């Protein structure tokens, strides 16, 4: 809509600002809380302006706080989270792009059935199938391992579905031209389909990285060994402190730090991200 009426401009901005405030306020409070000392926070009223303990809180969370809760170092957990997110991202994209390729470009028995089975898993969130998944992972002896942390999360349908939809928009003639040009199936995949999917892959990287980064329930179930703990689990551990006094200032500092990687990913890949969701290069 292109309209030039001052009142509408005002109204749209008002809604925009209102929406922003509603969404951003908790994040702001978290940041503010991470800059006060524990006493201020325990008075009950969270102050609305940043305090003076920024450096103190953040250096504490990065050094010795987690050890006090029986957790590995903060940087160790951050590394765990990073490894998990990256492995999930790469694994999911590899599996889904190849399976979508198979479903769209090859004729084999039960092809449609295969697609629908993959598609149906979309309708069951991890939480619903968590019991059988846990059982399988436990029986395979994958508890407390990277495989157990990542593989069950890699196997899901979202990305397969997106790639399938994208492949179906690629004109058949491109495939036919490639066949006439002497490109076999895998050559077509590498030389043509993969470069064409570049923006989609970029967009999925962002989504899947964040998906992997914020995983909480699954890592909580399959890991008891603290050396596999991720940031999300660590934060949770600190909130359920045994002695009753929760160090909210440290928890909040940890949370704010944990928010940074996804934010950085979004900022740096934003251009690619938006293009991938809206444009196709044709």
């Amino acid at each position, binding site marked *: 809509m292109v309209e030039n009426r001052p009142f509408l401009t005002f109204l749209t901005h008002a809604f925009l600002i209102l929406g922003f405030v509603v969404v951003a306020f908790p994040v702001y409070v978290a940041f503010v809380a991470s800059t006060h000392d524990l006493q201020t926070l325990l008075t009950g009223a969270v102050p609305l302006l940043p305090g003076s303990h920024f450096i103190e809180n953040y250096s504490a969370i990065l050094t010795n706080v987690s050890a006090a809760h029986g957790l590995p170092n903060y940087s160790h957990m951050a590394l765990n989270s990073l490894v998990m997110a990256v492995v999930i991202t790469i694994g999911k994209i590899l599996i889904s792009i190849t399976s979508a390729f198979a479903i769209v470009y090859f004729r084999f028995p039960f092809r449609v059935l295969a697609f629908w089975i993959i598609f149906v898993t979309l309708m069951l969130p991890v939480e619903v199938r968590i019991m059988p998944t846990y059982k399988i992972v436990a029986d395979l002896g994958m508890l407390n391992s990277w495989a157990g942390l990542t593989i069950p999360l890699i196997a899901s349908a979202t990305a397969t579905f997106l790639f399938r939809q994208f492949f179906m928009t690629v004109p058949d*003639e*491109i495939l036919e*031209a490639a066949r*006439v*040009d*002497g490109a076999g199936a895998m050559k077509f995949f590498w030389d043509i389909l993969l470069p064409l999917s*570049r923006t989609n892959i970029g967009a999925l990287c962002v989504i899947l990285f964040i998906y992997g980064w914020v995983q909480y329930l699954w890592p909580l179930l399959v890991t008891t060994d603290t050396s596999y703990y991720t940031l999300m689990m660590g934060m949770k551990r600190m909130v359920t402190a045994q002695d009753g006094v929760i160090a909210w200032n440290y928890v909040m500092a940890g949370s704010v730090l944990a928010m940074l990687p996804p934010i950085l990913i979004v900022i740096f890949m934003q251009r690619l991200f938006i293009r991938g969701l809206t444009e196709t290069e044709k």
Partner: protein
Amino acid sequence: MASIDVEKVGKIYTGGVRAVTDINLEIKDGEFIVLVGPSGCGKSTLLRMLAGLETISEGQVKIGSRVVNRVEPADRDIAMVFQNYALYPHMTVRQNLEYGLKNRKTPKAEIDARVTEAARMLEITQYLDRKPRALSGGQRQRVAMGRAIVRKPAVFLFDEPLSNLDAKLRVSMRGEIKRLQRRLGTTSIYVTHDQLEAMTLADRLVVLNGGQIEQVGSPLDVYHTPASTFVASFIGSPAMNLVKGELQGDKLVIGPAIIALGAYAPTPGAVTVGMRAEDLRVVSGDEGMPFTVEYVEELGSQRLVHGLVGDQLLTIALSGEAEIAGTMRIAVDPARLHFFSADNGKRIVGTSEAAMAVATPSPAPVG
């Protein structure tokens, strides 16, 4: 360079739908063949079977002396130009041209030489480093042709390559394709639904209808002696007039008009009579057939007059300055009449070369 033999080729899709039936064609080396017909006539299917993009359900196809039924498209020594160009969007023009050669492990120097030559021939040298999306439709079409040319294949296959272009560009590209094919001497098969494109490009036309060949012949043969009412109405613009008539002895009765054919009439009884719009002329006095004008289409060089003889529609082509009255009398040289069977629309051979006179109409009602 190669000849192509198409023997008893048919296509049945899974599900039993028959798209193409019993096609027999012998295409000589260097010939330009145009497959023409309305949409759904099987012309693209036939082309795609030659290309290897569709399996051949029946019969066999030979390129050169080799049966290619089970040969991959890449190994058939063909190159294809697609309707929507099918350029690889992420590659530059140069990479698009090189791709097929690289896959064939052609030496780099050879690739460069061929790309340079093709680009020069098609005047796309200055676009070699652009992506296809930065090119206009005509330029993309040239790149698509370039991709075919660099391969130096035995056969070019064109699948309606010009139908995405605007009318003016289509005419000039048509000329270029013809010139290029003459120059390279490569056997070419070209699919189109545009009869004008077919007429202008072809050494031989193949008119297809309902998955079967209606007629094969040079453009002028097909134009002057169409083998059926289908061909007659498809080839030529405006379409040939087809009216119901009856042969009585040596006279042809069309509605209220009687045309004397002289000594010879091909068959007694009901026939479909074909008359080219440009073979009809206006006559004065009581001669010829009464013609009631309905409307006129101005083409500048010609005026197309649509009207009725009896209750049957006719179109006549007159010169741009011709005067037009509300009712006129029109006549046709009997030698230029085409007779088709009223039952199956096939041409009745031995059409009259007889007398030219046009009889006065019988006292039947006019208009």
